[in-house]
């Protein structure tokens, strides 16, 4: 068969695609459990962090011992408890549009839903070095302790800084946060008992 004939070209292209696609499929299938577990751990880590719990030596054990899953509407949330079995705080999922893509994460709120305990991102696609700095600790940590006043949106200013050169990403985070908080407040009856 001539190398430049149509038939050879078609057979060659199909065969090569099959070889590479199979190689990728096998690798993906082989590593899928590990990848899923890694992603779950990132999520567990974020949930523990927004509630101010140290992950300890074994992340999975700490997670299952310290937290109880609960439902707010159809959202999966997690509650942490003190020694007497009283609720200390809730981890509530955060989800929305950033400047370049979706931003996903968790916020921690106190049991009485009157202040933020923390904020963590699991997924964000902001510009590295600019908007991507929303994932730096100094930025996230300043949200811990911010009071949640009904009817009043959280805003930058007093003790809460946006990122220089990344106004859009900073504002996107703030909007997502405010949306998440107002969403959370609709479950107030269920949560703040």
């Amino acid at each position, binding site marked *: 068969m001539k*190398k*430049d004939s149509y038939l*050879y*070209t078609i057979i*060659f*292209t199909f065969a*090569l*695609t099959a070889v*590479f696609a199979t*190689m*990728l499929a096998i*690798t*993906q299938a082989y*590593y899928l459990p*590990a*990848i899923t577990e*890694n*992603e779950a*751990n*990132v999520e567990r880590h974020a949930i523990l962090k927004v509630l101010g719990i140290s992950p300890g030596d074994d992340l999975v054990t700490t997670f299952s011992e310290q937290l109880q899953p609960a439902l707010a509407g159809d959202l999966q949330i997690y509650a942490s408890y003190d020694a007497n079995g009283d609720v200390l705080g809730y981890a509530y999922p955060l989800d929305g549009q950033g400047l370049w893509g979706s931003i996903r994460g968790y916020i921690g709120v106190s049991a009485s839903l009157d202040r933020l305990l923390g904020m963590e991102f699991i997924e964000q*696609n902001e510009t*590295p*070095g*600019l908007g991507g700095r929303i994932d730096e600790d100094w930025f996230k940590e300043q949200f811990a302790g911010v009071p949640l006043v009904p009817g009043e949106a959280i805003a930058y200013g007093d003790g809460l800084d946006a990122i*220089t*050169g990344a106004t859009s990403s900073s504002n996107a985070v703030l909007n997502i946060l405010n949306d998440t908080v107002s969403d959370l407040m609709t479950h107030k009856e269920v949560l703040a008992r």
Partner: protein
Amino acid sequence: MKKGAIKALFRRNVWEENQVLRQILGICSLLAVTNLVSNSLVMGGGLIFSVALSSFTISLLREYIPHRVRMIVQTLIIASWVILFDIILKAVLPDISRALGPYIGLIITNCIIMGRAEAFAQMNPPVESFFDGVFAGLGYTIVLVIIAVIREFLGFGTFFGIDVNFVGFQTWTIMVMPPAAFFIIGVMIWIVNNIMARKQASGGGKRG
């Protein structure tokens, strides 16, 4: 393969025909990642891996690839290696994979990889092609890191994330933004072109 051949490949890819400075390839990713030294190193590492393996594979198959579909075949091979690298990284080194985020995908579109496939791997044996890829990636990485050191210092006052702004000067926001790389790469190309022109004028007879 002779030792001298590797040395010649090294010299040509890192200096004389540097992908960025002499051939003006790979500029898009250079603008994006050079605001931090760590990002640049990781991007460079990913590119070295991808371009070396892609060139090797393309060279192995070079006798069998039909001429009219060669580019689509090259893209297929490049994309497969990059995705494979991405999957393994996600499973084995999740922290690094998270830090890299979208950069891995960007490697597929880096013109250097296809450039080496078209210009070298297509007509040279696999081992030579592999080294050609490694050195082309290395030349790219070196330029990236030089620019990143300048940008990170002026833009953030840091080096590898460590604060080195001892004088306490005001950091330049422009250095954090992609256009800053344009200014620096422009100056670098100007300097290198001058050196090359001077070399040719004085000792042009020595080397072709």
